[in-house]
């Protein structure tokens, strides 16, 4: 227990641990099945689960701005001696855009524009035919991104995009990927949301919601569930249309 005090006396600590893993979707399928069978016969455990599960959903829907606010408040990340301040583990990694968008919107915007420009010159390998129809596209990671993911595909004459993606990190709980047609950080339209499996592969074949020729890039971003429908500014792949 490491000095942790239970605050709810209705459950044993071991039950609270397994309930926590269940609520935060951190059980494997077998464990989850066992937990669900247990919930069916254990009234106290079920009552706690029913009480707390809606709160988990509310937290999942909290916007990134709201989380950024929480992270910047006095006392955030303060921790007792057995916690973050003394651990040899690295400090929580923050993605490059966290905080900057809310605190320094101008800087974030300039950074995004710069990344777009870099994407034209370095991050994108493109083999294309004139016009959009039938164009072959290759999406690669932006400079500085550690992923070796790549997406190859084409824009079909009937207005679809067909993409085969490989080496994409598997979607973590609470995250998903979104494909976009994009010209700038303020001119973009979502194309499709998808998740990547443990094999790192995904395939998209979706009709485009707008004239692809009107946009310069195809972008794939890592999004957080419940963080709103706007682009997260966390692009993992990008290529020209």
């Amino acid at each position, binding site marked *: 227990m*490491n000095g942790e005090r239970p605050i709810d006396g209705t459950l044993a600590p071991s039950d609270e641990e397994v309930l926590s893993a269940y609520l935060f979707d951190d059980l494997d399928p077998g464990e989850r099945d066992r937990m669900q069978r247990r919930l069916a016969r254990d009234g106290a455990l079920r009552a706690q689960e029913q009480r707390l599960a809606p709160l988990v959903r509310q937290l999942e829907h909290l916007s990134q701005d709201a989380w950024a606010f929480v992270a910047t408040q006095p006392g*955030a990340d303060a921790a007792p001696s057995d916690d*973050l301040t003394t651990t040899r583990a690295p400090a929580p990694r923050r993605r490059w855009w966290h905080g900057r968008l809310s605190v320094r919107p101008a800087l974030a915007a300039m950074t995004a524009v710069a990344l777009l420009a870099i994407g034209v010159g370095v991050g994108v390998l493109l083999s294309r035919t004139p016009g959009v129809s039938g164009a072959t596209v290759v999406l690669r990671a932006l400079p500085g991104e550690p992923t070796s993911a790549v997406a190859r595909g084409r824009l079909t004459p009937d207005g679809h995009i067909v993409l085969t993606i490989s080496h994409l990190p598997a979607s973590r709980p609470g995250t998903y990927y979104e494909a976009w047609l994009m010209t700038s950080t303020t001119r973009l339209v979502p194309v499709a949301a998808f998740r990547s499996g443990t094999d790192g592969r995904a395939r998209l074949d979706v009709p485009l919601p707008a004239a692809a020729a009107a946009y310069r890039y195809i972008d794939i971003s890592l999004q957080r569930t419940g963080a709103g429908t706007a682009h997260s500014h966390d692009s993992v792949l990008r290529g020209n249309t």
Partner: protein
Amino acid sequence: MDIVELTVAPADDPVRSVMPRSQRAETQRDRELADALRVRDEGALGRIQAELGPLLLGYLTAMLGDRAAAEDVLQVTLLEVWDRGASFDPVKASLVTWVMMIARSRAIDQLRRRVPEPHDPVSAGTQLDRAAVTEEDPSEALLEQWRIADLLTRLPAQEATMLRLRFYDGLSQREIAERTGVPLGTVKMRMVHALQRLHRMLEEAGSIR
């Protein structure tokens, strides 16, 4: 050690036996500020702006989609807090809830006053625009989001950190344990305790019956 102190409570409701120190401090603060507003102590307004300003500005920016407009509405909100200060009753609602309700009303006024502008169909829009696709009242949903954000800041920091790593950084419990060096079992306990505490605070705020 956790920032938790046991208090006397009904034996049939163990959750009520614990109230974070920060929550009791908030109750005390609300009482003090209610008294100060009643006698029109100008220091009260400064304290409200200092303590709630960032929260209100975040909420209003999300609602209006425009930082400058949010700053304007924040000033209008604070003026109204000053004018209506004598009517604030900390028994009926917390200061945060009362002030945020005023902010919400003034933000809705601001949205209604706006002349329709050409709309870029591919732009992201405000969080309110995006929330509007749901069946619930988008301004109410947004208000609830920021109420919860406020409550998250009142959790013991070590519990709030776990939730932030889970929902903001998208880490699993095992990854949080690896990242922080905190044992996995402790991570799980802190996260479920954080939920229990939040639930209790929402109950006290009247958001959960």
